[in-house]
């Protein structure tokens, strides 16, 4: 498709502004910008451009999207409707701190406060903040809280421990707070190697960051022991909530010994991913860390809501207000719709779906850790790759069958990783069709692996040259 800049024609226009009801003033010449190149296009052609662009995407609403580690579940339509209520949409965030204005936004503050409480209940934490605007931002916030806590104890710690199966955001976040990152290898069970951990655990360690279940989709059976070990040297336990969907309502990170947690609400709580965002990454902490939470913060005091805008111990602002409010609103409603039973049941069905896919496929693909998985399962396609059909090839094959491919080449510790997360909202029939397609791919890999190079054949483009992209670095239209 043409770029919208290429469809532009001088003098065309889509939007009309209201008539100016005061005199037009000229802006001083010396402060004026020069020509501005934006598309000039009619409303019809604008709509056609974007509607037709949208049709080039796969999406949860149109396709099965089992992208591992991303929890691409169905997002109920009522959440979209609820997030479009004008009384929230048009609410200026400064009302939260302006004099006498708290009753102008009390519905919003009550929602945030309730959400924080419920999030604590689900995760086993004591206090929470909605400020972080994504999972990685929650990690950053959490590690800052941990750092501030240690500083408040005059404890100079320099290291953060992560397992080698961790999301890349974990070491990156720790690094942004100035920590040295220590990586612990996984054992043959796919879990953190406790003996190895013990070697590195000392009073230099500020925190151990864990995902549980981990990115192999496996529950860390030693998690309580790990928590105890960390606590014994004064380190705190950080829970990366990316995989909370697998255990919500079944066990609480707080009860497993975690001190700080973030939750990816766009994964766990029914808020769609928007092609990359927005998400939200609220953070929960145990009581002893409350004072370090970012500002501003909504807090219930006695029976009324207050906004804490100043706090000596707080890490300060990580976002301007209360994070991605409309995203939090959706997550809040989603949790309310599900209730305690629905939360637990969703985790159960997510795990059932992943195990079903794993069991149906394990005679066809290599399963590096052959045990009950949680919400996702990770295969290794290294043998297929040797035959000439890589994980990437499998992915492209699946596109032509109408499925978004699983995550490939992550986690890094599995060769030719092929990571399937079906989520709880998919039916058995959908899973069966997907499994059948993979089995077809396996057969094709055995019979005619060269055929894979042609896939996908049904899409608007096929196998773009990524090396060329990185070399040419054309990152805006050449007009």
């Amino acid at each position, binding site marked *: 498709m043409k770029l919208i800049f290429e469809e532009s024609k001088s003098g065309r226009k889509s939007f009309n502004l209201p008539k100016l009801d005061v005199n037009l003033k000229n802006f001083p010449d010396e402060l004026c910008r020069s020509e501005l190149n934006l598309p000039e296009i009619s409303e019809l052609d604008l709509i056609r451009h974007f509607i037709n662009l949208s049709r080039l995407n796969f999406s949860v609403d149109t396709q099965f999207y089992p*992208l591992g580690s991303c929890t691409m579940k169905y997002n109920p339509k009522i959440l979209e409707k609820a997030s479009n209520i004008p*009384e929230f949409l048009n609410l200026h965030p400064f009302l939260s701190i302006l004099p006498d204005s708290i009753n102008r936004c009390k519905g919003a503050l009550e929602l945030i406060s309730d959400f924080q409480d419920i999030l604590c209940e689900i995760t086993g934490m004591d206090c929470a903040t909605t400020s972080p605007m994504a999972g990685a931002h929650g990690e950053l916030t959490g590690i800052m809280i941990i750092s501030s806590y240690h500083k408040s104890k005059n404890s100079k710690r320099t290291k953060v421990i992560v397992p080698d199966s961790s999301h890349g955001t974990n*070491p990156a976040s720790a690094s942004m707070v100035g920590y040295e990152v220590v990586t612990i290898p996984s054992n043959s069970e796919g879990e953190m190697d406790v003996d190895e951990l013990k070697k590195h655990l000392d009073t230099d360690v500020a925190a151990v960051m864990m995902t549980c279940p981990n990115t192999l989709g496996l529950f860390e059976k030693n998690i309580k022991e790990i928590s105890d070990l960390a606590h014994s040297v004064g380190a705190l336990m950080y829970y990366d909530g990316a995989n909370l969907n697998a255990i919500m309502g079944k066990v609480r990170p707080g009860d497993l010994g975690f001190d700080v947690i973030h939750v990816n609400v766009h994964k766990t709580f029914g808020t769609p991913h928007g092609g990359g965002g*927005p998400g939200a990454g609220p953070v929960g902490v145990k009581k002893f860390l409350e004072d370090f939470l970012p500002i501003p913060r909504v807090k219930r005091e006695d029976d009324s809501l207050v906004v804490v805008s100043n706090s000596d111990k707080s890490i300060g602002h990580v976002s301007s207000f209360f994070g991605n409010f*409309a995203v939090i609103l959706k997550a809040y409603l989603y949790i309310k719709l599900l209730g305690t039973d629905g939360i637990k049941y969703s985790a159960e069905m997510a795990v059932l779906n992943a195990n079903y896919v794993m069991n149906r496929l394990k005679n066809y693909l290599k399963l590096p850790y052959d045990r009950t998985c949680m919400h996702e399962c990770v295969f290794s396609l290294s043998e297929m790759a040797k035959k000439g059909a890589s994980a990437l090839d499998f992915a492209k094959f699946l596109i032509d069958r109408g499925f978004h491919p699983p995550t490939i080449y992550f986690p890094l510790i599995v060769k030719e990783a092929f990571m399937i997360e079906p989520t709880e909202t998919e039916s058995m029939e959908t899973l069966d069709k997907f499994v059948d397609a993979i089995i077809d791919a396996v057969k094709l890999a055995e019979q005619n692996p060269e055929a894979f190079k042609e896939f996908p054949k049904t899409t608007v483009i096929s196998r773009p040259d990524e090396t060329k992209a990185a070399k040419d670095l054309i990152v805006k239209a050449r007009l």
Partner: protein
Amino acid sequence: MNFCPHTPEDIREMCSVCNVNEVDDLFKELPVEEIDFKKLGKGISEYEGYNLILNLARKNNLLSYHFLGAGFYDHIIPSVVDFVASRSEFYTAYTPYQPECSQGTLQSLFEYQTAICNLTDLEVTNASLYDGGTALAEAVLMSLRITKREKIIMDKSVNPIYRNIVKTYLKFLPYELIEVETEEIEPDFGKIKSLLDSNVACFVFQNPTFYGSVHDWTDLINFAHEKNILAVSSVYPISLGIVKTPGKMGVDIATGEGQSLGNPLSFGGPYFGFLVTKKVYIRNMPGRIVGETLDRNNKRAYVLTLQAREQHIKRHRATSNICSNEGLCALRALVYLCSLGKSGLKELALINFSKSEYMKKKLIEIGLVIKNNATTFNEFVVKFNRPAKEIFSTLLSKNIAFGIPLYLFGGSENDILINVTEKMSKYNIDNVCSILEAIL
């Protein structure tokens, strides 16, 4: 309610394939703990759920109109913006890792990148950051990476909330941040200049300033460049319909809060931040970048590029930890900018400027003082002869939120920051001024 489709028979059949008797057998490795939910009750229907949210929404006592800005602006949003952003194929997709089934997202982000570069007269940008404050913090971190220096000079006419975010990001790291006091409310160019020594990685300013003043920073930027100091700025994108661009002033890294480009105020989010810089610094940028390439049939195609900078590959040596961004908000901005187009954004900026000038005139007529010494865009500081808090509260009782009293940010207790956008009618301006006249 829940959104799981399985029937009891499905579950039995699937358990049998999994070689378990019941679903709970799959959770055997978890410590058994019955969770005692006290706050979260039973699930409810969507009708009840929607009413729950609606009732909360109605607890917000609405204003008749307001003059609130200070970085977060109440602009008209063309209907096409909501329409495009509500397409399932856009908003229920993930980050476009698989280009063949994500050209919709990828091409629109490429177009977004183009629009932001054109808007700022700079060369490269990413597919969005979280918001204006964190974008500024990322720009500062980027300048430290580029220059390998340790000191940051930040003008105090930068939005105080953004300054707080920058401080949060920096306080765990071994860098020195110096904030430069303003002269009254205008930047102290001389003071800033005097601090620009060879240890400085960047100096940070905002244009228009937090107080609404528009300056040409070109001279100071040229001076800084002589010392290999980077210029980092925050900019209000709507002002760029008319105001001299960061690129033309020589800014090295421009950032901004994207909210005003087609995103509702929504009590603080979701918004998005943009960060745009010179091509030479592209490898130091945080965030996703979409690049153009060719596919196996030599057809133009878009892909995520330079992923080697990112956390999922580079881990603790990444340019940032950012993973999820605010892609859908960036799409809204693109549709917004295309809807207004070349002439529309300029016209919009001029309407904002003209209405703001009209309001200034009216306030002066009733004896008030505008504190800005410089040209302002659509925001300015008005000084009263008594505490702003009183004025604010009186008008609030008439359902008008009359700007942001600056004592909230350590300013004079008599000053209020007033914003006027295209939504504000002459009628309402006249009305608020006559109320003011009566109470002064």
